[in-house]
């Protein structure tokens, strides 16, 4: 079953990378537990970040990325307050 641009499930219910078939998650209810996670300051996201967030807010803002451990394809990119958990999750039954 296709999950999104990068992910699908295999016959055992594991979530795998569509590009390299690396296992990303053990099950559809825990779909990204083997993904790589890395965070950097938001200004590393490129020229789309026009100004230092410190001009506007007191909280640190981070670029957080989740990647396939096999081919390093980006699975999720978000720019969020540093201390916040990631609210962008999904699970299938």
């Amino acid at each position: 079953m296709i999950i999104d641009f990068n992910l699908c499930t295999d016959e055992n219910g594991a979530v795998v990378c569509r590009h390299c078939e690396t296992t990303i998650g053990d099950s559809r209810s825990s779909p990204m537990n083997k993904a790589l996670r890395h965070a950097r300051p938001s200004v590393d996201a490129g020229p789309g970040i026009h100004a230092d967030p410190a001009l506007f807010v007191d909280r640190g803002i981070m670029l957080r990325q989740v990647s396939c451990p096999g081919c390093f394809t980006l699975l999720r990119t978000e720019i969020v307050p540093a201390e916040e958990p990631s609210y962008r999750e999904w699970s299938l039954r």
Partner: protein
Amino acid sequence: MPVIPVAGSERFAESGQPLQTSGPFGDVILHRVSEDITAGLDALTYEVIRHRLVAVTDDMGDAVKRMSGSVVVTDCNDFGTGIMDEAGETVQVGLYNMQLGSALDMAARWTLTNRSANPGIREGDQFLLNDPWVGGGLHQNDVTVLAPLFHDGQLFCWTAAVAHQVDLGGVSPGSWSVDGRDVFWESLPIPPVKIVEEGQLRADTEDMYLRRSRVPRLVGLDLRAKIGANNVAHDRLTALIDTYGPDTVKAVMKKMMNDAEARLKAKLRELPDGTWSSVAHQDGGRSGDREIHKIVVAMTKDGERLTFDFTGTDLQVEGIINCTYAGLRGGILPVMLTMLCPEMSWSPGGVFRCMDIISEPGTINNCTFPAGIGKASVNSAWATQNAVSETVAEMLITHPEFGRSAMSVCCGTWDLTLLSGVDQRGSGFATMICDPTAGGLGARVDNDGVDTGGAHCIPMGRTADVEINEFNFPMLYLWRREEVDSGGPGRWRGGVGASSCFIPHDSPVGEVHLVVSANGKAVPQAAGLSGAYPAATQWDVLVRDAGVREQFAAGKIPRSLEQLGGRTQVVPPHLETDLTPGDVYFTHWQGGGGIGDPLHREPERVAKDVGEGKVSAHAAHAVYGVVLADEGRADPEATETLRRQLSRRRVGLEPEQSPIDSGARR
């Protein structure tokens, strides 16, 4: 000072739940139709009348545009129209601002429940409201005129026209009071009042309404435009009833909602059960606020139902960005209609039957009176739309066919620029500049987002020509143009946004008042999907004492901020100030989010983007990993090497390190 709760205000808080049609509703008798008649409609009659009802909402829009004198309405289509059945369920909304069609049912139900006994609801009456706790629009500028249609003494249905009014009082021109702490800083909401009584415009009610505005003649014209739109609708509907009979027309209305419900449920059954969660951030709840305020949503799809659970959303803030329950619905319905229901009747009455909403009153997108809501529509309602858009799109992408309707988050907010003062004809004016209607649309699973394609919630949204703005208001554009790197990088790129740069011009008093309100300057708001980057942050710049007029005198037109000279100030999310004749204002609104890893985008497509000014050479290298040769074409070998390096760097590895966790590879 903390917001002071107001005793008794809860009676204005419409729940959004269907009406208990048993009444009583004063002496109003509801026209009802049996389910047998609805079930027995022949297909041809159904389709003829259904299309006629859709056309009625279009006709209403035409009527509003023809009679209004506001550029916001005539040139930008910031209004909505709708038809509701006798119980207020929305049968059809027009293709204009769908946020404004999201709570018309609430307004009709509240009016029927609270106004039928006193002052009564009778043939030829129309009601005006701008109380978002009741329903109708999402903030006080959205004024609804609601008209019951009677047939043979029975309340047959309702029609409504709602449009953004450019000023309805409050501390600041335009009613966007960026220093506001609660609703008492803003234009005070008007619960439904009888504005037309048995066909006659009530002078006392009109005076009460217009007295609050800085531009009463313009608002008065819009009032007549909305009344006229309802009259047009009633003429058309009466003709339909005369031709087909009231029961048949009503049966079509019911079937339209039933069909929307049935078709949406059938679609949902084909999608996997699961939960998709997201978040939307807004930096700054009012002038001087340096906090970030979040809306959290977990959308669960179970069988043929969707549940939007906003548990975890921040409490309402002392500021102007909260929205009421009407705003929360306004954040959901446009996404539902465009992504999930593109091939169905846009009958919100049926769509709402397929979903549950869990939200705590007192939170930022379900606030209680007297929280400030002056910017509700384009703050917490729009942010709700962003978060909901992500969850619905992710669900749809699991399906090979339905996924083609999915779209990443579109332009993350409305970059409010409001001008007021004395225009070139010596008259007072106040208006928002609607250029940000040309936001970038989100990427799709098989294509880039549409550059400056619009706003998700206004399918028929437009921007006024720069000449129209210059003709109507004391301003002169230096440019309005699409902006490089404003679309979210991805395998499919988000549509680019744009910028406008202008000077005050030809006002007899010289200066022009400026109100700016736009979030997304610290945290991007148009997120990408499947690993893509969000669209660029909002960016507004004020240049004081620029040398523009001297350059004009020398035959030059500045084409960049650097060429303007003067003192540059990066504008915070909320600001109120004056523009003097030597100043320049630059506003850069957002594009759409991307889809997929930008390192997977074909190098030649990136090179084309660079050539067309959609992507900079810097972003092509640093984000897309594309090395451009001298002639502007992508260098395949160098690109492959660079992409390998970038992909390692993104996970925190040095380029020379070996791939990790190779054991996980199959």
